[in-house]
């Protein structure tokens, strides 16, 4: 029954090994088959969860105190579908970047095994129910992502990769220290078993704080975002898309699981509001920094810093009420669906934007926003994909971003805490402000000679990258036009921690 759940991790992991053994020629084909199978498995699993509820798997048939459990609730299934969809698009884009002899990157064949390993790690992160397994998956995701960032080979890429590695390492160490404390306190690593035993004593509170700081560092939440823009911007475009769409989001999913379920007993209202306030700061600060950027990929990377703030609003609006035993409350459910729907739509939209940016940069010969003048005429499809992704982030209909923000605002108002709704809407305006700067440059012929350094020689739009960007842009629209199935899916298995009213 749960073959699809096991396959969601095992298939990309096996693909990574095969891609490594297969070498330069076979690797792209291995990746293509892996993506197709993973997409089918994720779809099947989502259907299974949507129809029949939460799917669980005890690895190797060992039950929980001894074995390690995996679980696909609605959120995990949706994240697996997101991973597979973005994965397929990134793989298609990578065909024109890394496959064969004509790739632009010196060590392009290294891309495939690292990328599939990253895929497996992200899948493991979202389905894992064991806090130590999460640590291993976090490190696996970090190591493979650092390898991908370093592929550029130049000074900027290596510095970005090293900064990313040290930040991820520190985050994982803080997380592991939290795991040590919570194991000493509860004697278990299983999230469900833990949720009944976590109290609000000092050890549990310290553990939750340490694990949260580790995950916030991994998710690049202000003020722990310092490593992200350089790492994401110096990587090749398909890698940036995968990192911004999947890796930071997966860390955020683990954070939400800890606060809403595993460590619910240690969650206090003040701490949850503090995390929410951090989210608001992230939205504002990330957007302001994005406005100041001159290079397109830097702007999109800072946009990720800002958008992660929306996911943090899940903590005060959904996780903390759930931790108090508020399952079934309409406000909480709306906020849960809105925040998680935003996690998925942001992933798709950010993937579309980074891939479209890759096309535009290749066509214009440089990534300075000022040098992108008139691209709407020369690469209309790439510009369209970028704009659809941008509109999704702003949250206008008919995109998935509108649906997600609608539910977030509804949850906030129903809960009687309208200030979060104000932050959601103000963030939309800020997002629109920095994206319009780019759109203006793309639409108008801004060629004022002599103002900027002359752009490099303009090139062709890479075909695979364009297909990937366009496909993800279509998914953004589909998420807005047919949201009901996705919303129902995300409503499956909203956590109801054992012990209910902790604290």
């Amino acid at each position, binding site marked *: 029954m749960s073959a699809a759940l096991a396959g969601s991790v095992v298939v990309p992991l096996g693909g990574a090994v095969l891609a490594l053994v297969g070498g330069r020629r076979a690797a792209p084909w291995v990746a293509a088959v892996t993506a197709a199978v993973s997409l089918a498995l994720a779809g099947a699993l989502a259907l299974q969860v949507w129809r029949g509820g939460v799917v669980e798997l005890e690895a190797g048939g060992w039950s929980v105190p001894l074995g390690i459990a995996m679980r696909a609730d609605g959120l995990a299934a949706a994240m697996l579908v997101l991973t597979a969809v973005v994965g397929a698009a990134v793989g298609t884009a990578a065909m024109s970047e890394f496959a064969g002899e004509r790739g632009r990157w010196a060590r392009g064949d290294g891309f495939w095994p690292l990328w599939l390993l990253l895929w497996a790690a992200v899948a493991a992160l979202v389905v894992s129910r064991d806090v130590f397994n999460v640590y291993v998956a976090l*490190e696996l995701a970090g190591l493979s992502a650092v390898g991908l960032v370093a592929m550029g080979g130049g000074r900027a890429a290596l510095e970005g990769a090293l900064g990313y*590695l040290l930040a991820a390492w520190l985050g994982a160490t803080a997380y592991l220290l939290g795991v040590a404390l919570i*194991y000493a306190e509860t004697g278990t690593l299983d999230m469900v078993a833990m949720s009944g035993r976590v109290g609000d004593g000092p050890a549990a509170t310290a553990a939750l704080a340490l694990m949260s700081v580790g995950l916030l560092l991994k998710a690049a939440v202000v003020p722990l975002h310092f490593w992200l823009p350089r790492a994401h911007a110096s990587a090749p475009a398909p890698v940036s898309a995968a990192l911004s769409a999947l890796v930071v989001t997966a860390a955020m999913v683990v954070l939400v699981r800890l606060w809403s379920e595993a460590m619910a007993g240690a969650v206090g209202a003040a701490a949850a509001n503090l995390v929410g306030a951090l989210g608001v700061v992230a939205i504002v600060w990330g957007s302001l920094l994005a406005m100041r950027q001159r290079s397109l990929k830097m702007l999109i990377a800072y946009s990720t810093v800002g958008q992660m703030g929306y996911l943090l609003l899940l903590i005060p609006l959904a996780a903390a009420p759930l931790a108090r035993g508020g399952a079934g409350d309409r406000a909480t459910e709306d906020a849960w669906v809105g925040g998680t729907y935003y996690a998925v739509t942001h992933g798709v939209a950010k993937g579309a934007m980074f891939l479209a940016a890759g096309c535009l940069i290749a066509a214009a010969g440089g990534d300075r926003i000022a040098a992108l003048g008139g691209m709407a005429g020369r690469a209309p499809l790439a510009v369209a994909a970028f704009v659809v992704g941008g509109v999704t982030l702003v949250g206008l209909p008919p995109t998935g971003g509108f649906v997600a923000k609608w539910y977030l605002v509804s949850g906030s108002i129903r809960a009687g805490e309208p200030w979060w709704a104000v932050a959601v809407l103000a963030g939309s305006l800020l997002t629109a402000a920095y994206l319009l700067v780019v759109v203006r440059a793309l639409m108008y012929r801004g060629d004022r000679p002599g103002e900027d350094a002359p752009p490099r020689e303009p090139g062709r739009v890479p075909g695979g990258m364009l297909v990937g960007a366009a496909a993800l842009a279509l998914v953004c629209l589909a998420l807005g036009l047919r949201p009901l199935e996705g919303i129902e899916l995300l409503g499956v298995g909203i956590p109801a921690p054992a012990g209910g009213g902790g604290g």
Partner: protein
Amino acid sequence: MRAAGDPYLLVGIALVCLALRALVLAPGALRRIIALNVMGSGVFLVLIAAAARGEGEPDPVPHALVLTGIVVAVATSALAIALARRLHRIDERDEDDGGGR
């Protein structure tokens, strides 16, 4: 977490704090890599303290976690050192080119 584990717990936390100080204050990638290794050792000691809580036989689970943690730390250190060395080489080559930058 009484009795047998206590010294390990204290030493572990002290190591984490020292490493954090070095990580914030020390310049240079190599020092940071060493600081993170020291911090990891501190966390491992805390895990060992967690194994010794209660009476009787120590709990084997945290020891397994430490083993896994050591493997992860070695792999991460190797990658970090490789990246730092590559950066160092780029610096050296730039200096040889006479640019001075």
